[in-house]
């Protein structure tokens, strides 16, 4: 299924395992092997940051377009120091891409059907429509106080 | 939302297919081949097979009409469809109050 990041279509060979298999998988890994976990979007970000600090990737399953838990989960993971890749898997739409990136999500995986309707150019354009919002390190609040 | 699943239970017959046009929001009814603003010109489904055909049209018209749905209509004396419920009567003829410059 199509995988997008801020630059465009991408690939990622990180192997996804269940959370309780992560440690075993990582113990036996060869050079270049990357392991990640798949979690539901009601996962507890704080606990997850504690349990999976060694994961190279956390893939968050998003059941519906309007399910915004993924944004808070990703933001919490980043705040608690998770430095690996965060992926949202599910029917996000291009208009949510900028929010996803701002919350620390690196990749979005969508269905072929959706990608056919909403090809890459729509995603990249949508990510740049709003130059800057108020919050965040490059936000308007930060800009004003720097001025 | 009035999404329609195949073989879902139909509202009471007879019925018409209606919705709001995507571009301008106007109330429209399916007249058998196209969409019209006039309820009395709508196709009245009096049997299940016709109703199911209208249901298919609802599904196919999502690019033109928003949330098309089947709704029970009355059959007027002239045989043409008329509203069976006060909500549909207001949809068909507009607000029941004066408004704007006429208020």
């Amino acid at each position, binding site marked *: 299924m199509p995988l997008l990041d801020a630059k465009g279509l991408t690939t990622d060979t990180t192997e996804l395992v269940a959370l309780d298999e992560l440690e075993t998988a990582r113990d036996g890994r060869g050079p270049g092997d990357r392991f990640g976990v798949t979690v539901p979007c*009601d996962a507890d*970000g*704080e606990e997850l940051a504690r349990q999976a600090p060694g994961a190279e990737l956390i893939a968050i399953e998003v059941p519906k*377009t*309007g*399910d*915004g*838990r993924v*944004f*808070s*989960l990703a*933001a919490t993971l980043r*705040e*608690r120091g998770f430095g690996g890749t965060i992926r949202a898997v599910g029917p996000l*739409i291009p*208009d*949510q891409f*900028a*929010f996803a990136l701002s*919350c620390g999500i690196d990749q979005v995986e969508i269905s072929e059907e959706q990608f056919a*309707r*909403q090809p890459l150019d*729509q995603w990249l*354009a*949508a990510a740049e*429509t*709003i*130059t*800057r*919002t*108020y*919050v*965040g390190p490059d936000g*308007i*609040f930060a800009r*004003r*106080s720097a001025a | 939302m009035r999404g329609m699943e195949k073989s879902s239970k139909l509202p009471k017959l007879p019925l018409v297919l209606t919705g*709001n046009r*995507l*571009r*301008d*929001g*106007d*109330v429209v009814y399916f007249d058998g081949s196209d969409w019209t603003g006039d309820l009395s010109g709508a196709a009245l489904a009096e049997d299940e097979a016709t109703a199911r055909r209208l249901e298919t049209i609802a599904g196919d018209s999502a*690019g033109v009409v928003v*949330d098309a749905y089947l709704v029970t209509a009355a059959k007027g004396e002239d045989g043409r469809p008329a509203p069976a*419920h*006060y*909500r549909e009567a*207001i*949809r068909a003829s*507009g*607000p*029941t*109050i*004066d*408004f*704007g*410059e006429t*208020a």
Partner: protein
Amino acid sequence: MYRYDEFDEQIVRERVEQFRGQVERRLDGSLTEDEFKPLRLMNGLYLQLHAYMLRVAVPYGTLNSAQMRQLALIAERYDRGYGHFTTRQNLQYNWLKLVDVPDILGLLADVGMHAIQTSGNCIRNVTADHFAGVAADEIEDPRPTAELIRQWSTLHPEFEYLPRKFKIAVTGAEEDRAAVSVHDIGIRIVRNEAGEVGYRILVGGGLGRTPMVGKTVRDFLPRVELLDYLQAILRVYNRHGRRDNKYKARIKILVHELGAAEFTAQVEEEYRQLERDGIAVAEAELARIAQYFAPPPLDERAEPSDLLAKAREADPALELFARHNLVPHKVRGHTALVLSVKPIGKPPGDATAEQMRVLADLAEQYSHGEMRITHMQNVVLPHVRLDDVPAIHERLLEAGLAEPNAALITDIIACPGMDYCALATARSIPIAEDIQRVFADPARQAEIGKLSIKISGCINACGHHHVGNIGILGLERMGRENYQITLGGDPGNATTLGERLGPGIDADAVPGAIEAIVDTYLELREGPEEQFLTTLARVGHDPFKPALEAKKETADASA
């Protein structure tokens, strides 16, 4: 008033172009209706019974003359020559076409307005006391705080897709005119024992099908901590609010299910762990924003005004108007003038383009160019000299805006109801109009005194019927409109929800029933100064119950 800087301007302009693109992608099939709907809602655009409805934000209810004139222009060019002031201090157009909306948003942006987050499952337009900066009982003008929250919540990446809509209200006064305890978050500006100004934070209030009064989660929050604390509340809600049932998705249900103590503990825990980056922002921004809300230069003048007193004596209509529609101003010799958008027998809150222009002109000439929209669906000229009231009154008479009924029984709040709204189960406006006609006589209204009637056309309670002294809820029963009457609601400091008087009645029985309730009140009250709620508290619901019974026989005639 707040004025956009280059950043505010840019975000609003970009938002217009973003929506233009979204409309195009909906029309060309890139977006399905299910995908597009939340996007249009977040730009205030609903599909109602007859057309698209656009809800324009009037942040904390404050707007200037240029903005009002632009609203008039849009009403004429794209709607049917009028607009509707709402209970959340916004303005709605009822007859728009989807394809016109991007241009309309562009016209709004030209005067520093927008429709951002006036609907959808996000943080909605922040409301505030409509007498902000005017009222004598104010600790501080709530609008800088409200503006700070507006900015923070605009396109906040984490909170655009909440479980459900989220409403915040702020008041800085002792009397709560913003109904903060029936909001998802209510903020009261308070002073602590050390004399510092900060916030009391209430969470989990709301009307709708499960009305609840908000619980205090922090008695005193230092003001620089506001944004971070809101962040913690919103994050707890976004993670744990229910998403399985839209009727249980508001934060009030989460607070109720967890219990206020546990909810507060979770918020405080989240707050403790949060990366606190809002504190510096709040300090600098509040100071920057507050400058814009500096009071206009008003000179103290004689009070009472001789000129007004003489004019009142000479003109009974002005006398009535001045008695009911003037609100005390903290600067001597001035008043906040309530312009009733509730003429008898017309849709409550509707104003024509022509009326909007009159309002704009009057504001410019007499009120430092400023107006307020109230949650009572009226307009306030906040800074008027008492001496100017007679001249203003004359202009209002010509414009049909001089109804002397502020806070009286015909100053009815009503949602649009089934005449417009796709969610409604019954009509509201004709009910309001019929009741107004019954009580049209100004002398009779004055005799009754302050009494609020609030009407909702469905259980979602946009007409705030739960907090009306008399509340009316329109439902459907066996294919007919049916109205339930509640008594005893009060949105103020001692927030109280009304209780049902009895079984629902037909539409044409409502005015008679209300009249019987009012007559009972007049009979039972201990004097003209005893308000309806006091009488009700003393005598209970029982004496009012026959009001419903008596009207049953006449009910059958309704269509």
